[in-house]
């Protein structure tokens, strides 16, 4: 078990955003977290990466309880998130942004290798490597965010809405890359609005609703679950 979340609750001020969430991610999996806007998907991600404190419950990574660990130390443990809304450093060039992904790493050779790999995955980024992140288009920023997360060579990659604001072609591309990354050995936890794509690619998935997990199963199961279809795919 790579990641194990047990009965996690989280508060925003006095509003409870998560009510006892439990989920697991196994090594080598793609796990998707789907749900409507405001259901608590991104909040879950923030709790895992340590940007928000949890009120109760525990988060274990490779068997170690990391619930009280500082966010940057979680990154050092091999847990890296490409945040929602991309979180590009607008004043840094594409290369510098990618370098930030490798901030915790000291092996120069490995970093260079990964940089080559990322630029290979995203040729657009290679073209714009000297350009400040703020001037990229939405899709390019999304690629940069994913590429940057990869630069830390994470054991578990957390992707928060990688398809947001992207044209269909690009969505396709991003998901292809997610699959490819996964095949290369990175475990992925994916939060998606685009349930169709997410479920199609994921090994397993959880459905969140108002801060609770209401359903879970394999991607295929959920993809064909009529209730899920109606609620999140808009298909009556």
């Amino acid at each position: 078990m790579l990641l194990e979340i047990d009965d996690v609750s989280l508060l925003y001020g006095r509003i409870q955003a998560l009510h006892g969430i439990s989920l697991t991610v196994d090594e080598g999996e793609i796990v998707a977290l789907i749900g409507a806007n405001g259901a608590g998907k991104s909040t879950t991600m923030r709790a895992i990466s340590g940007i928000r404190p949890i009120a109760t419950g525990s988060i274990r990574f490779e068997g170690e309880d990391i619930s009280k660990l500082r966010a940057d130390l979680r990154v050092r443990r091999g847990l890296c998130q490409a945040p929602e809304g991309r979180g590009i450093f607008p004043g840094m060039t594409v290369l510098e942004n990618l370098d930030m992904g490798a901030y915790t790493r000291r092996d120069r050779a490995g970093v260079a290798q990964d940089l080559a790999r990322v630029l290979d995955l995203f040729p657009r980024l290679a073209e714009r490597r000297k350009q400040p992140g703020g001037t990229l288009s939405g899709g390019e920023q999304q690629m940069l965010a994913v590429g940057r997360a990869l630069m830390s060579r994470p054991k578990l990659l957390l992707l928060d809405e990688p398809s947001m604001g992207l044209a269909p072609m690009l969505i396709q591309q991003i998901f292809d890359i997610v699959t490819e990354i996964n095949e290369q050995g990175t475990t992925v936890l994916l939060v998606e609005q685009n349930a169709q794509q997410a479920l199609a690619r994921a090994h397993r998935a959880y459905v969140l609703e108002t801060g609770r997990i209401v359903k879970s199963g394999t991607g295929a199961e959920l993809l064909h679950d009529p209730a899920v279809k109606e609620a999140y795919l808009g298909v009556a």
Partner: protein
Amino acid sequence: MDFDGLFSNFGELTTTGLTQGAIYALVALGYTLVYGVLRLINFAHSEVFIAGAFAAIWTWNGFGLDQNSQVSGIGSVLFYLLVAMIVAAIASAGTATVIERVAYRPLRKRNAPPLAFLITAIGASIAISEAFGIYTRRLPEGAPSLVSSKPLFHVFGVPIDAVQLLTIGAALLMMVLLDLFINRSRTGRGIRAVAQDANTAALMGVNKDRIILMVFIAGGSMAGVAGLLYDVRIQTLTYSVGFLLGLKAFTAAVLGGIGNLRGALIGGLLLGVVENYASGLFGSQWKDFAAFAVLVVLLMFRPTGLLGESLGRARA
């Protein structure tokens, strides 16, 4: 208004203004760095400057130099300057670190609102300044005259002396070093990352506490060097001078666009020159008035300063 006073002394007012401005700029960097990363006016930064300035004087005293000593020989002068500079930088960086630890970090741990930070900053500033005042019995301390201010050469008839060269040169050198540090080093990249988006930076594995510490150390060292240059130039130090100088330096930082390193330099130099022109034009008593008037007017037309805000956003 004394236009004659302004024009006949234009050259010298400019050079002395630039010299003073260089000191403002170095102190302004500290404000700008901390503001860029924490969005906090580090009100106590003026005391960081004073700590360095006193440290330099006390170092010289330790070598048996007082305000009446004459030092000759370029070698020994350089030695004294260098030693005092290192001590001053360490003292200032240390003071800044202590302020961060004692006054700011506990508040960050409690997620206190910005106003609370401002008040602790003011409290720390008053307390440190008073501590120096009580220790020195509120009397001025003299520094030896290490560098001669006899004119070395003339440019367009304006005499340039060694103190001016040293001050402006050292300030520029420190600026370049800081610029390199921020833009080239790994820590510098961390600083810019935290300044632009602290949460995302944490997601990249940046330790915010460590970065904040580095920012205080970097800003503190700059202030320490500024303290040394101040000693060399003015040769006397009173515990209370930090307040106004700090205020001016902050003004300089805002003028240039707070959070913007190059803005701090430009703001500092501009402020030094403008207030000197004003003292030529209206009389020295209106010098500070002019400095603040420039700030107010500028902010009305360019609400984020000359070069605009933010560390890193405009490529630092």
